[in-house]
């Protein structure tokens, strides 16, 4: 079993958080853009 480092609890993965934030913002922006185009074209009933 790996020995727990005393600094593990203080570790803050800033780079990972930044990459994930970019991913999430891009995902939401693309999704929302297509959604608004879809809604703007009107119904099909």
């Amino acid at each position, binding site marked *: 079993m790996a020995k727990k480092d005393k600094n593990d609890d203080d570790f803050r*993965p800033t780079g990972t*958080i930044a990459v*994930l934030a970019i991913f*999430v913002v891009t995902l*939401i922006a693309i*999704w929302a853009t297509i*959604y608004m185009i*879809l*809604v703007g*074209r*009107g*119904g*099909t*009933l």
Partner: protein
Amino acid sequence: MSTQQMHIDPYERNWMIFSAILLVLFATAVSVAAFGMGIQVPAPEQRVDPRTVATDPNSPWSTPGLREVSPGKYDAYVLAHAVPTWEFLPKELSVPVGSSVSFYVTSSDVQHGFKIQDTNVNFMVIPGQVSKLTVTFDKPGTYNYICTEYCGSGHGIMYGSITVTP
């Protein structure tokens, strides 16, 4: 038996919560569009015999085209085929602006696709099955429709257009 408490890293927990919220938001938005705004995916409308659908005099696809069912409302019967040549019948349609058109599309041979530019009409055209969607043309102009399923060497020339007149 001892009780063990599962350890979840705070970052992992937050990511799971955020992902779940995002999924709920997306599902809600799609439900609102589908059931609140009437943006539906096509369901099979009816079954037909692909061997006779283009020739049976009782079949509306033997004379494809527009039928005005009431003022401002039309039914468009569109036949897609690859034999003798790749084309939609009719190739051109014309309706006044504000018209609501229900498209009934089927194929007499192989699988095709049907997509009308700048609308949400986009579905597969399967031999033996009629696909239906309705769209209201609120803006004048020309709306092209194309085949979106590869159907052979002439797939690229399968197109038509709807002219919406002012």
